[in-house]
């Protein structure tokens, strides 16, 4: 079963309850009311971008328990995972919303694992939009989307999306990308294409 947390914002409402993706989710869990019973039969739980980090911190034991039971947890961007998932390292970067307006702009994104299953569902170019900080993946994690070191020396580069099947008995997919917000705001077509590929993959993974 595939479940998604619902933060009750307008963009969670549009992305989760809108007609485009609603049929993919087996269960929608309103985040303030999350209970252990609601997760018992869930294989894959998606924590959309831009949930309240305070709420995620409050539900930390439930969310980490999901991983400890060998299940899959997907955590998207702007959720301050470094404050509630052990071992997560995140460095902020000023967000460049304008990279695509610069003359001859080439996005810095790299795809070190082009043969990863992720890319059978999501085209590399559909992960490319502005980003909100970079993650340092733990040993054993597979980096799916990477960026090189910050040109102004704020960080040594890292991942925008990694798949960690090493650190816990479960599988943690962690990203700094925020597609629920942008799709749900009718804003950025790349984020819709990302979800068009990613969410059906999650449904298949949850039902496998």
């Amino acid at each position, binding site marked *: 079963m595939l479940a998604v947390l*619902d933060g009750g914002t307008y963009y969670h*409402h549009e992305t989760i309850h809108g007609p485009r993706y609603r049929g993919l989710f087996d269960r929608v869990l309103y985040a303030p009311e999350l209970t252990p019973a609601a997760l018992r039969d869930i294989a894959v739980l998606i924590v959309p971008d831009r949930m309240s980090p305070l709420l995620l911190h409050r539900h930390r034991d439930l969310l980490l328990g999901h991983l400890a039971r060998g299940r899959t947890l997907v955590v998207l961007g702007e959720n301050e995972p470094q404050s509630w998932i052990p071992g997560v390292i995140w460095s902020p970067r000023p967000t460049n919303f304008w990279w695509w307006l610069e003359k001859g702009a080439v996005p810095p994104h790299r795809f070190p694992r082009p043969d990863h299953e992720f890319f059978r569902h999501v085209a590399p170019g559909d992960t490319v939009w502005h980003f909100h900080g970079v993650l340092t993946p733990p040993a054993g994690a597979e980096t799916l989307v990477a960026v090189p070191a910050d040109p102004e020396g704020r960080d040594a580069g890292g991942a925008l999306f990694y798949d960690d099947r090493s650190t816990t008995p479960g599988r943690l997919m962690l990203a700094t990308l925020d597609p629920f917000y942008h799709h749900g705001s009718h804003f950025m077509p790349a984020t819709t294409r990302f979800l068009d590929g990613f969410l059906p993959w999650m449904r298949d993974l949850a039902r496998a």
Partner: protein
Amino acid sequence: MRSTTCAEAGAVPRQALLLTCGHVETAGAALSRHATPDRAILALDQYALDAAPLEGCAGLLIGMHSDQRFLAAHAGRLERYLRQGGSMVVNGHVAYPFLPGASSFQPVPGGHPRDLEVHRERAHPIWAGVSAHDLTFRRGVAGFYGRGWHRPPEGALVIHSLGQERWPLDIIWRVGAGRVLLHGGNDLWQFGDGIAPRLLAWLFDESGAL
């Protein structure tokens, strides 16, 4: 920014409450820069609204990242606050029924930049000195200020609209003795230092003018 509750009912209301959404360090920074001792902004996590008396608050500020389902569960309380003379500034797309008189958000049809052009329907002090052109474009890109519309309640003032069809974007209306400003896009206080201080002046205006 201070974190407490507004003064007791009966005190002169000189404080507004900003509901925050868990990002404690960055919440409302662009707005709070313009607060003064007699126009204080108190930050309160949205889920603590239950415990906060609203009666002493000059205004309630609700950002685009708010949990509207939670707010909708408190719609009666919000409406009572407004009817008794409170003021609310609400940003974002209305997806749940938490705001008396507000309809659900609809995206503007069409994908051309002219569909996202901001039109000034009438002058208003909050936007004095800021042109509709400046609201429309950031670095030549349209759509940051708003991408959709809400149906205005009876008697509402529409300040800005979008596109040739003039879809209502910034709307102000009365609820009882109180008033609501709905900006159907990204948080108003993000749009430069011109708007935020005037927004606070409006919120703290004791005349209650729309």
